[in-house]
């Protein structure tokens, strides 16, 4: 059923196209420029640079941006599994994300349970021997 038929909906399949950088993608809610269709009451494109503070919020901001690129790419690849450009970008971003998550756990606290290995034994808020999974603020606190 490649062609359109009566009495059933059709949505054109997306072609790989121009992308936003990681920061802008998170701000706009998609990496794909062609899928960015804002509502009339919303402001234009906002820049999404992470503040250069050298602290946990800067690193978390970078993790949020790169993780979102991977979220959006995952859904694209689910439906376009043979797109070489998307796959190459996925691999590249995944490697960076792994590195950033590891760095975050070593410097601050683990974001995932498998990052506990990177912070355990370090002087956390509860001391060297406490379980570090509970370190760090809850994500809904907005800190």
């Amino acid at each position: 059923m490649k062609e359109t038929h009566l009495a059933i909906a059709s949505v054109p399949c997306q072609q790989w196209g121009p992308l936003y950088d990681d920061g802008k993608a998170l701000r706009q809610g998609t990496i794909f420029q062609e899928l960015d269709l804002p509502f009339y009451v919303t402001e234009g494109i906002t820049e999404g640079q992470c503040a250069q503070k050298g602290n946990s919020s800067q690193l978390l901001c970078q993790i949020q941006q790169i993780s979102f690129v991977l979220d959006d790419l995952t859904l694209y690849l689910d439906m376009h599994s043979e797109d070489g450009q998307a796959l190459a970008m996925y691999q590249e971003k995944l490697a960076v994300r792994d590195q950033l998550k590891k760095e975050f756990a070593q410097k601050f606290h683990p974001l995932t349970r498998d990052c506990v290995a990177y912070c355990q034994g370090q002087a956390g808020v509860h001391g060297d021997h406490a379980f570090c999974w509970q370190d760090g603020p809850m994500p809904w606190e907005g800190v």
Partner: protein
Amino acid sequence: MWCYEKRLQYPVKITKTCPKTAQLIISQYGGPDGELAASMRYLAQRYTMPVKAVGGLLTDIGTEEINHMEIICAMVYQLTKNLTPDQVKAAGFDAYYIDHTTGLWPQAAAGVPFTSLEFQSKGDAITDLVENLAAEQKARTVYDNLLRIITDPEVREPLKFLRAREIVHFQRFGEALEKTKEQLDSKNCYYFNPEFDKQFLKTRL
């Protein structure tokens, strides 16, 4: 299984208490077109999807909707943090406060509790994917309605993000529908139910 990642998909940092806004936004937690209904819809539908990649997509979008539920809950939580009894009364948040104080509970803006009647898992891939296309549009309309009347930029930014995701998900469900259509009878797309009458499927999936 699911693995928790201790961060929000989109940052929420609301500094101004506003129970009135919380009462509107809570609809995207437990309302008819909310994120809880969205995640439950997709995660329920995926088991019987005849095209494996579509079941995978439902898992991934259903998972993202849980992230969105967490964003909405974080917004409601921050908007009602440090609430005084006077603010509760002045903002019309009193009815919610009587039953839940400032705890999070899934309900619509008008107070109707969350129910699974808000979504469908029909056991027919075409029916379910069309339901999902409609669901994404309904949620987009709710975000449009919120964005028209909410002015606080700290609240608007996450709402804009969530609205944009509805459009991307609509595109992906459209592509999932195209993939599913490839398995149907080319002359009569309603000749059989691809989830139940598997003997008619073009390829064994």
